């Protein structure tokens, strides 16, 4: 008790607390007044979760995505904190919208509360600025491309567009300076402005009190007065608890906040803004050229300006909605237009079947990136480099570029190369029918009488020949007795066309010494027309000049791996 008295004597906290809590609420406490308090609570929640996020977030182009993926997938409850921050922003937009509509319908912007309204509208603008700057920070595909659109709009400003864009994005291109700028705005500048304006907004609110229903007369209000504490605060606290519970359910249901694959400037991505910018996004579809600029920059200016000017335009003392048909009708039109445009935007997306597919692919890529980041960490080159940590990443990228069109799919010209390549079943089917469609059936050679004849052996003899070729690959599980039997059969059946002494030229068929080993593949890929391989019958391009020794070795390792892989193992690697 003595400490409290001492503190009160020195700091005067009792008077401050008394002033804050013992505010008379004219007309009595009401649930109608909770919106501002809920908004204030959500603001505190955003500040808390934002501060927590800053403990793990790194604002650099090479680290941002990796740090967010880390906090999402590894830090205790990181997904929850980020989910609360992300969806809390949406909740703030909703509650701010309700707050604004209520104040508008109540006519609470009228004298003497014009400045309450003006500061409130500016705070709404700050809220949207928070959303715009925060969207980029994870440096993922959605944030990157959606923000590109936003800075593109800034760049289309007449006269000083380029300068404006460069000022916003920090130079000629997106990079570290874009992130540090957006980060500084999002966590330092905007919060400082918001805290200052909220203080003014609250002080003004305290000065003028709540705005009661327009149908209640002054003397009626005077007769029923309740204190803010506890009567109104109990209602506010109830509403805050409900809002928080709803937000938790929302975050839980959504599984936290979305994190797309790392930003990739070389990719194509369907950029979509947050839902509250969808109306503006849709509006831009109806304009082109300079009209688009006017719409993109003009619409927010007109709407914001009209809102700011409302207390000046509608100055009559009567707060009854019936006497304020025109301003309320305009507001109604604005709300309906926003809802309709937003609905149209989502409907056109839903009708776009291709978009659904692209989104599904983007999600798979995001999942792959996050799984790789969790398992291997992200190389210092930055987010997209995480894909390079995937097994055989380089080999599969080369494969997709140089090999796939001849060795997979309907238009191929050579044998199919896929999971199980050079396994025993693969070799057996090959020996039985070398010119089958999946083998050499598509080559020019297969259409001549010089193609390899099917092996006539069956049963254990066929097993022996398969084992002989299989053993060349260096596989560990070789049956030596079968190989010995195969070697005898080789002399009778195969040696007229094939050699199996390493390095010996072989004609007409290739030498299959070490067939299926890395060095075999590396030299085969370099030049399949070498005398030890297909010689003049070769139909495969030479890659000695196009692919480095290292690249060919990477490819070779991948081909060796395929031998024991199942199709689902290959699918699990994802797209290169």
């Amino acid at each position, binding site marked *: 008790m003595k400490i409290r008295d001492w503190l009160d004597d020195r700091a005067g906290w009792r008077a401050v607390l008394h002033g804050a809590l013992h505010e*008379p609420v004219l007309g009595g406490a009401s649930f109608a007044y909770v919106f501002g308090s809920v908004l204030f*609570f959500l603001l505190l*929640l955003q500040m*808390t979760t934002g501060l*927590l996020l800053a*403990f793990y977030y*790194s604002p650099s182009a090479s*680290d941002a995505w*990796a*740090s967010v*993926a*880390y906090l999402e997938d*590894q*830090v*205790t*409850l*990181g997904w*929850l*904190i980020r989910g609360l921050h992300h969806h809390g922003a949406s909740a703030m937009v909703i509650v701010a919208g309700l707050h604004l509509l209520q104040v508008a319908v109540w006519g609470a912007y009228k004298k003497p509360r014009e400045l309450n309204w003006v500061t409130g509208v500016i705070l709404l603008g700050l809220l949207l600025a928070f959303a715009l700057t925060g969207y980029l920070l994870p440096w993922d595909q959605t944030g990157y491309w959606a923000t590109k659109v936003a800075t593109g709009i800034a760049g289309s400003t007449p006269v000083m567009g380029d300068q404006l864009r460069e000022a916003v994005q920090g130079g000629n291109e997106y990079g570290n300076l874009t992130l540090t700028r957006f980060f500084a705005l999002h966590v330092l500048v905007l919060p400082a402005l918001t805290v200052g304006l909220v203080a003014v907004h609250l002080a003004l609110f305290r000065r003028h009190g709540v705005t009661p229903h327009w149908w209640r007369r002054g003397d009626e209000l005077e*007769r*029923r*007065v*309740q*204190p803010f*504490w*506890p*009567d109104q*605060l*109990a209602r506010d*606290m*109830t509403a*805050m*608890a409900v809002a*928080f519970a709803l937000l*938790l359910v929302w975050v839980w249901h959504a599984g936290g906040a979305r994190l797309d694959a790392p930003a990739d400037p070389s990719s194509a991505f369907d950029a979509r803004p947050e839902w509250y910018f969808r109306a503006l996004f849709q509006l831009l579809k109806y304009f082109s050229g300079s009209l688009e600029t006017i719409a993109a920059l003009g619409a927010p200016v007109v709407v914001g300006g009209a809102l700011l000017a409302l207390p000046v335009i509608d100055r009559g003392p009567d707060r009854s909605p019936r006497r304020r048909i025109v301003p309320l009708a305009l507001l109604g039109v604005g709300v309906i237009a926003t809802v309709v445009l937003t609905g149209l935007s989502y409907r056109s997306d839903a009708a776009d079947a291709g978009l659904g597919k692209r989104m599904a692919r983007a999600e798979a890529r995001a999942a792959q990136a996050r799984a790789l*980041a969790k398992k*291997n*960490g*992200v*190389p*210092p080159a930055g987010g997209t480099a995480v894909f390079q*940590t995937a097994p055989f990443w380089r080999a599969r990228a080369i494969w997709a570029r140089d090999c796939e069109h001849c060795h997979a799919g309907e238009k191929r010209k050579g044998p199919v190369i896929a999971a199980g390549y050079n396994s025993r079943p693969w070799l057996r089917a090959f020996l039985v029918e070398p010119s089958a469609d999946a083998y050499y059936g598509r080559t020019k050679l297969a259409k001549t009488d010089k193609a390899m004849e099917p092996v006539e052996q069956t049963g254990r003899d066929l097993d022996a020949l398969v084992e002989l070729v299989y053993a060349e690959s260096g596989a560990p599980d070789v049956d030596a007795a079968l190989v010995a039997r195969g070697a005898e059969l080789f002399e009778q059946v195969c040696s007229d066309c094939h050699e199996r002494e390493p390095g010996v030229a072989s004609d007409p068929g290739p030498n299959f010494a070490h067939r299926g080993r890395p060095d075999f593949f590396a030299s085969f890929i370099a030049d399949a027309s070498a005398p030890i391989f297909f010689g003049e019958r070769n139909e495969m391009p030479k890659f000695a000049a196009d692919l480095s020794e290292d690249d060919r070795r990477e490819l070779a390792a991948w081909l060796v791996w395929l031998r024991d892989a199942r199709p689902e193992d290959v699918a699990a690697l994802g797209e290169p």
Partner: protein
Amino acid sequence: MASSSSSDDPPATTRRRFLKIATCSVGCGLGAAIAVPAVGYLLYPVGRRLVTTGDDPIDAIAADRIVAGAPPVRVPLVAAAQRDAWTTVRDVPLGAAWLRRTDGGELVALSAVCPHLGCAVGWDDGGKIFKCPCHESAFAVDGARMAGPAERGLDPLPLTVADGRIRITWVRYKTGGSRREPG
């Protein structure tokens, strides 16, 4: 329904009392609902190894470069890969070792981290001693403590020789104190 605020009215007083307690309880509940996950989230790094390098010995130098009787040789120890929270970096310098060969032909590696407060010790070829530039601790060529505030000698590092190359296992010991404990 209470019509006006009258604190003498018993039902109103009871009701306000209830409201005050309920409001405080809900408020505390809300605070706890945010604070509890926040504490778990903030303490995630405690007790976890978030900066890791493989435990494999690090290739340092050819064994024949270290000869008996010559001054100790300083070799940087560079890890092939280091996982630092979300990043995996290649070729990361971890620290340095002083290598020498005893007259008996045995190879010895000493951590260059001063066991006092962690500065990098250097070799003073005039005095034939290791010297710490920060607080002037001095150590004999075999690492034994000679003078200064350090409470123990230089920390030896495990070493193997394979294919003519010296491989050293990097250990960062806790600084301070006379006991040698991995940090």
